[in-house]
């Protein structure tokens, strides 16, 4: 909440936004190349990267306490496990 908590600069956020826009362009461009299944993988990778930018800067996760970071990490681990275990079923039917 205080001045020193996170730097009060507009420019940082504008750079992040620029990066996000460029990445959007990249992902659309790559999708146009028709890589097949690999394309989905790449698209998801870019999406993950984009969202981590949003998390870290726009949502200030970068500056949050260790507790909150741990909590977010737990969330993603749990979600990954949900998906992972669900996939012990479908591919083996």
């Amino acid at each position, binding site marked *: 909440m*205080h001045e020193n908590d996170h730097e009060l600069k507009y420019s940082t956020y504008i750079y992040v936004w620029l990066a996000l826009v460029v990445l*959007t362009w990249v992902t659309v461009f790559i999708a146009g190349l028709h890589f097949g299944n690999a394309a989905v993988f790449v698209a998801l990778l870019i999406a993950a990267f984009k969202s981590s930018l949003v998390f870290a800067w726009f949502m200030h996760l970068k500056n949050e306490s260790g507790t909150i970071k741990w909590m977010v990490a737990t969330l993603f681990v749990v979600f990954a496990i949900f998906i992972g275990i669900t996939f012990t079923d479908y*591919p083996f039917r």
Partner: protein
Amino acid sequence: MSNHAATLVAHKHPGDVEGVKIGMWLFLFTEMLLFGGLFIAYAVYRSIYSEAFHTAAANLDVTLGAVNTIFLLTSSLTVVLGIVALQKGKQKFAVLMIWLTVLFALGFMVNKYFEWSVKIHHGIYPGSPELLASHDKGEIVFYNLYYTMTGLHGLHVIIGLVVFFVVLYFIKRRPVVTEEMPFDILKHVRGGTRLAVLSEKGDELGTVAELDDKVELVDIRLTYEPVIEKMDPRNIIKLENAGLYWHLVDVIWIFLFPLFYLIS
């Protein structure tokens, strides 16, 4: 009447903000997992019908999707700029940024509206006879998921809009903090509160205990110490939390966009 007009300054424990943040993040977790269930469904069905998903995705307009992505990304930017502005005490600019956010969000919805109405016009909507008759099952699943996930996302955009209006209302109604509170309020101040008596100029007059001996009668006003240029810190917290919610809506779209538009 009163000998001194003293101001009793309550300095809130910064830990409180951390707690509010924890609460907000936990709430975001539940939102993420609400969509998470749908993402699991998406993953399962894509693994079963990967061909059909490719065919069906070709019918979605990548340009519209990309424009909407840019809209949301930009609106996310304007929110954070608004927060920074509020922290710097630039209230007018902050309000402008929030309005811009609202504008982009509305743009997103208008775009979405056209996209959906074109689809529905072509007979592609859940349960439509045309869809059921002429497409294979995988494509039907694709559209069902498409409508459910973008629909739920759209609902969140609308909720976000409402939240921003609420924040705007609060900023307008109570831009600065100089609330007078009955002395009684002291009882309710959380642990970790630092109390000091200041003169009008801001010099410390003494501790509360010493007050007893020196002063006979005081007008006591309890205010929160203004953080920056007397902006109400509660407004900043409100905007920050609204922003967190809004960024989450953005993040979900960041995933929806490639999963529906870019897999053809």
